[in-house]
């Protein structure tokens, strides 16, 4: 007998924006174009206005003026790394650690406190949040909806920045900016294949017509995960970016896409977690209108919709405990289908304004609203769907009273239906000791809003109206997690030596961390399942204090030649609240992480790059038996570029995990040497 634990409600239809719809939108906008020229002859180039392309919201803030520590990864660094996952790129950023929580599930985090989910950091792709509202929250790295080749740059805020990015910008913010459609090659194709079942293929084409640019990317990324485990993956992606210059001041940016992550999960021989194929599909559409003014001020109005559909169901033979057999008159065992499929919908709208107030003062402010809807009959028994809302108001004032001094004061006020109203402030002062040296001191407070699962989870395994197992109980109410951080930064940009030194000394106090807790089941004693007398719930619990120093020293005489060393020394102290918690965060990041990377253009089109990563002893899973020994990893990439077919081609060979077999996430997961190669052609 096979029974479903689902309620009758079916999934609403996915609402991906089709390519055709997008093209229709563009066609309808095609009626207006950049203002017609008022100048006729060859003098037009001197007299006509052209679109404002570098207004405040498009410009990156110089590192020396940033109110926190920021690391920028550009296209050259991304290419030279040879890494296939965006999460892995964070290995290059001081303070970050990354791995795969099983072969098919990447995970990354800043300063530890990360288990198998990246739920204390935030990733934004062109302003779209990749923080999933489902389950424990966090970044779904397999469903970011961006191809690594379309990335223009990745700006990583090392630290907390809820004042600028809102809740969940808790420990680390990764801001991914993709290239404008107009700025992309007409056609690119790439393919790589090799050990570990690596088989990736990607193509992109760009259409430009006057003021309209459209880029379409299709990609498939496959591998088989860790050796001897059922953890392969098959990622498929379609992503479309459109840019339309409506007038010299007004521009429309659109993104639409759909992606599907097929992930192998489970363990051989484990009936509770059998080997199976699961999928997470995501679709999204974003539109951003940008009005730029001649003085560089601008405003943007953005809206996006994001839909996620997870499918995971398996049937297991469940042995019915004797008391329940007697109580309900049930057989010794039943085939029960556990269907943890879910669906989320997110709508987010934001207005942002960059404003020059005076010669010494600039401001950015804005407001936004978000609605999340999570449908999961398994997690939310009897309710099925949880709706949450969040309104936000934010602002930052930058004041430069003298050439050497820069003050930043910012705050975000958020009103969330799950955790009430919170204000996340940030204060920073930058002192430019010289044109090449900056000292920075900053203080901030940031929050992570509890997810619907953490607050409202209510999971019951029911057969014929009878509760066989009750695994999760609602927490009722939870306070958001809170981090209060102090930092002292030093930045030296020694142009004449082509050298940059970036140092951050930090002290981060994390409070009210949301933890699992066991509570006695709130059911009549005769209905208690004897094998599970308790249920899981969430409580505000652990505190952690993270302090240390991280730095990156980079010598980069030219764009494709560099040598860098980055190190993080950190100490995590954790204290428990009550007796039911183990002290488990202290090893959630190594005491020392060292990353040495470099790239060298040998000449004749040959490029050689290498990276060496050293992680000290740590424990991702935070259980006694999963203490991992220190490990190191060396990657090499050799590329040869040449002209082909009127375009540019590169053949490359990548070797990863040279020298040592590592246990990266769990002791039984081993990462062997991996060699793969491929080509990329652009026209």
């Amino acid at each position, binding site marked *: 007998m096979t029974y479903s634990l689902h309620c009758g409600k079916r999934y609403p239809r996915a609402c991906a924006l089709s390519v055709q719809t997008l093209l229709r939108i563009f066609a309808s906008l095609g009626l207006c174009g950049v203002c017609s020229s*008022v100048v006729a002859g060859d*003098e037009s180039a001197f007299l*006509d*206005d052209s679109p404002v*392309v*570098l207004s405040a919201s498009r410009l990156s803030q110089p590192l020396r003026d940033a109110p926190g520590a920021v690391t920028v990864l550009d296209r050259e660094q991304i290419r030279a790394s040879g890494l296939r996952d965006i999460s892995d790129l964070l290995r290059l950023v001081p303070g970050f650690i990354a791995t795969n929580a099983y072969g098919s599930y990447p995970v990354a985090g800043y300063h530890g406190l990360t288990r198998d989910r990246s739920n204390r950091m935030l990733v934004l792709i062109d302003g779209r949040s990749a923080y999933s509202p489902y389950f424990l929250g966090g970044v779904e790295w397999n469903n970011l909806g961006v191809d690594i080749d379309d990335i223009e740059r990745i700006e990583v805020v090392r630290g907390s920045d809820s004042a600028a990015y809102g809740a969940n910008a808790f420990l680390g913010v990764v801001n991914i900016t993709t290239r404008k459609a107009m700025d992309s090659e007409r056609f690119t194709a790439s393919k790589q294949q090799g050990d570990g079942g690596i088989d990736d293929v990607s193509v992109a084409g760009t259409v430009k017509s006057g003021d309209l640019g459209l880029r379409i990317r299709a990609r498939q990324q496959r591998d088989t995960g860790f050796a001897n485990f059922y953890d392969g993956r098959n990622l498929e992606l379609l992503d479309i970016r459109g840019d339309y*210059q409506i007038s010299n001041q007004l521009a429309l940016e659109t993104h639409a896409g759909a992606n599907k992550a097929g992930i192998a999960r489970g363990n051989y021989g484990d009936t509770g977690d059998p080997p199976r194929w699961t999928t997470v599909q995501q679709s999204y559409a974003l539109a951003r209108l940008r009005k730029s003014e001649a003085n*560089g001020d601008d405003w943007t109005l953005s809206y996006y919709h994001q839909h996620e559909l997870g499918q995971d169901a398996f049937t297991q033979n469940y042995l019915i405990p004797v008391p329940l057999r007697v109580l309900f008159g049930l057989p010794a065992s039943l085939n029960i289908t556990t269907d943890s499929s879910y669906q989320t919908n997110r709508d987010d709208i934001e207005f942002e304004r960059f404003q*020059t107030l005076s010669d010494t003062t600039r401001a950015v402010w804005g407001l936004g609203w978000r609605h999340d809807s999570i449908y999961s009959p398994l997690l939310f028994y009897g309710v099925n769907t949880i709706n949450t809302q969040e309104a936000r108001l934010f602002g930052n004032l930058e004041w430069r009273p003298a050439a050497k001094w820069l003050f930043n004061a910012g705050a975000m006020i958020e009103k969330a239906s799950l955790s009430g109203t919170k204000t996340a402030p940030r204060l920073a002062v930058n002192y430019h000791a010289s044109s090449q040296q900056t000292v920075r001191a900053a203080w901030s407070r940031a929050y992570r809003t509890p997810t619907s699962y953490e607050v409202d989870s209510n999971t019951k395994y029911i057969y014929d109206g009878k509760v066989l197992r009750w695994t999760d109980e609602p927490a009722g109410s939870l306070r958001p997690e809170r981090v209060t951080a102090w930092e002292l930064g030093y930045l030296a940009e020694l142009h004449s030596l082509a050298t940059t030194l970036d140092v951050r000394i930090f002290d981060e106090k994390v409070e009210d961390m949301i933890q699992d807790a066991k509570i006695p089941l709130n059911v009549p004693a005769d209905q208690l399942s004897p094998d599970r007398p308790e249920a899981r719930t969430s409580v505000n619990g652990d505190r952690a204090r993270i302090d240390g120093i991280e730095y990156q020293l980079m010598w980069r005489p030219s764009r494709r030649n560099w040598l860098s060393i980055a190190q993080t020394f950190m100490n995590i102290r954790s204290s428990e609240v009550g007796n039911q918690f183990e002290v488990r965060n202290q090893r959630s990041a190594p005491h020392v992480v060292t990353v040495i990377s470099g790239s060298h253009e040998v000449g004749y089109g040959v490029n050689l790059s290498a990276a060496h990563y050293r992680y000290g002893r740590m424990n991702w899973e935070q259980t006694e038996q999963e203490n991992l020994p220190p490990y190191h990893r060396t990657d090499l990439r050799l590329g040869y570029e040449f002209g082909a077919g009127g375009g540019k081609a590169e053949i490359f060979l990548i070797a990863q995990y040279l020298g040592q077999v590592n246990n990266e996430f769990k002791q039984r997961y081993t990462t062997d040497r991996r060699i793969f190669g491929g080509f990329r052609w652009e026209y």
Partner: protein
Amino acid sequence: MLSQLLPIRPMRALLCALPGPFARALECLCFAFVLLLVTTGGREASAATIAVVLSESRGAYQEFADALRAELRRDQQTHELLVIDSEQAASRSLADVQLVIGVGGKAMDVLAAKDFKAPLLLTLIPRSSYDKLPAARRDDHKTTGLFIDQPPTRYIDLVRVALPDADRIGLLAGRDSHDNVARLAQVARDRKLHPAVETINSEGEIYPAIQRLFPDGGVLLATPDTTIFNTQTIPNIILSAYRFRVPVVGFSQGSVKSGALIALFSTPSQLGTQSAEIASKVLAGTPLPAPQYPRIFSVGINTVVARSLSIEMESESVIHDRLDKAEHP
């Protein structure tokens, strides 16, 4: 009858409105005054008609005409301005005017095809357009030009003054700008800078060219070649250069708004003012000057871009004055 001699329409109207004897007395007075003006000599003596042929009667061209008129008035010139557009000029005789000023490319084309005796000043056109005039026209000693583009020396000096750390100057050359780019490159070499030139044949080649030009930073000097730098391409050029953290030096006010770090340009008003000065001299009997670059110019800086690129810059006026001093020590 005398009133017909009075050039100014309101005065004529006033005379008609007055009773007979008064009118006649005033008319005599005015006539005496005009006589006095005529006989006392001075520049006003040769009140002449200047035909100002605008490519179009709006926008930048109108701004030019307004500045020209204002400058002549400020200089107490009484020349009559006949402001017409290029279409009117095509069908009208210019036999009765003493000087013709052609404003913009369209006006230049119409005037180049027309036969008239008066000297011709062509302005608000780039040098490359002027150079395309038939040699017979250029060498007839009756034609001169006041270009809209800046002298190569000033352009290169701008880089030296505003961005003293810049060593490498990248230039994009197109079909129409080989000569111009070669001139700029030569001046740059003379100034001990390192110019690098990439030739472009289509828009698609811009990005790879910028990539080749700046393996290690530098400055991109935009050149007035509409096949390369036009409203369609400027955004992409600026974005591509910004990606390599390469500042763009532009040649128009619009390019600064768009995202160029700094630009050197002469506005239509400034060219109008300088044209008025040339007109006054020519009508006073000075020979027609040789074709020239503008003397009056502006410097524009995009401070937002400067800050983003971490470039500390002097103010627009300081840079302008330094350039001025370099030219007139």
